[in-house]
């Protein structure tokens, strides 16, 4: 390895090299997973046993503790992707496109989970699995965008070249998502205002907020752990592809 030849490195350079990135980040994986599991245990206990029922919705309110963090992640993951896309295009950071690629399926997964739990919650609350309300509809469109990005990744033979093009499209999508959200809100008449983060403070009682925020933290850490792991997998996949190419080249020469 080239460690002795480069005594001082900034963290930026240290994570720029794939092998060093894995070596540097692998020790974080297990603590992250344990912490995630602990938070999930605590959050689920708070959500299912410790928190009260809703006086209107009864036990079904507990779906919220799973649904809302997923809905948050569906947007947070896109933010991570857009930031990685900037990293790919502007700073040409080699890890940025790995991060971008690893985040896309996770984003699609959390978005699908948000839609699924939303439908489960909607059935007893609204009396229907699917309601064309503003937030559910824009989440559905977001899922389509995630799936389109995954399809774009898969359509390219050369993943290095794909990265920069996907990055352009991801940023175009990032500019577009607020417009889509605005248009869908305009379009839907069945729209309830966002209720967790408000300028005049949260309206929910602490007995609901506490488990909700623990679940927020648990799901976000789950994403970070899965993201890190799938980045490692992607790095290994690329290394295998490089080795195979080298083998093929050596064979023909």
């Amino acid at each position, binding site marked *: 390895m080239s460690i002795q030849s480069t005594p001082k490195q900034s963290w930026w350079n240290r994570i720029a090299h794939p092998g060093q990135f894995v070596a540097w980040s692998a020790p974080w994986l297990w603590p992250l997973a344990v912490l995630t599991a602990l938070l999930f245990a605590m959050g689920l206990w708070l959500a299912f046993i410790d928190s009260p029922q809703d006086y209107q919705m009864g036990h079904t309110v507990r779906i919220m503790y799973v649904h809302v963090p997923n809905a948050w992640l569906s947007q947070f993951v896109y933010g991570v992707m857009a930031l990685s896309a900037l990293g790919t*295009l502007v700073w040409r950071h080699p890890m940025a496109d790995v991060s971008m690629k690893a985040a896309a399926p996770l984003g699609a997964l959390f978005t699908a989970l948000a839609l699924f739990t939303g439908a489960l919650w909607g059935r007893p609350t609204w009396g229907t699995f699917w309601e064309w309300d503003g937030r559910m509809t824009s989440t559905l*469109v977001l899922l*389509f*965008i995630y*799936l*389109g*990005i995954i*399809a*774009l990744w898969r*359509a*390219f033979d050369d993943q290095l*070249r794909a990265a*920069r*093009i996907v990055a*352009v*499209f991801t*940023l*175009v*999508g990032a*500019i*577009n998502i607020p*417009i*889509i959200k*605005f*248009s*869908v809100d*305009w*379009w839907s008449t069945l729209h309830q205002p966002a209720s967790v983060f408000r300028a005049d403070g949260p309206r929910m009682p602490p007995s609901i907020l506490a488990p909700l925020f623990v679940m927020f933290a648990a799901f976000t850490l789950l994403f970070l752990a899965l993201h890190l792991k799938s980045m490692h997998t992607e790095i290994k996949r690329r290394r295998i592809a490089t080795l195979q190419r080298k083998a093929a080249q050596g064979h023909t020469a």
Partner: protein
Amino acid sequence: MSGFVAMLRRELALSWRGGGNVLTLVLFFVITGAIVPFAVGPDKPLLARIAPAIIWIAAFLAMLLGLDRLFRPDHEDGSLILLRQADLPLSAVIAAKVISYWLVSALPLILASPLLAVLLGMDLPAFARTLVSLLLGTPALAAFGAIGAATSVTIRHGGLIAPILIAPLSIPVLIFGVGTITAAQSSAAPLFLAALSLMAMALAPFAAALAISLAED
């Protein structure tokens, strides 16, 4: 500037001599619109009510399906590499292509839309609003489409990728387009539609140029 005009003239000449591509697209638009009554049933009031939606969906699909013609022929015969080295900036080349794409795909659809309006039993005021909404909204579709086409130009058999990518992004166009026709009380929809088209036409050439110049070859 003369390069821009030359680019525009070349694109239009290629479309006119392109073996009836323009006509095919118009035909697709009319047939898509005319097929809906077979699914819905010959219920004239219902058809008149959903006519704006039918016309917009037909136009939306027709414009998405035509996207593959935007860059792929130039990519395949090597013109795209040379256009990247033209004196004209690549974004201007793409702007010319977007404008000509609008002229040869959206404008014929708008001209053919009276046919669908008669078939679907739209009244005259609704039809007038349909024309306005198509005129305001289709530039945004062409511009978004250019981004999708630029993104997928180097993908072999990538013809279906661009519509998949662009359809979700174009939902606001559809919403405000149909809104312009139906929501008479809220006059904001045509303004949003025009704003969307202006913004898309201004930004899309740069995004598409970036995607093409990153696509190598």
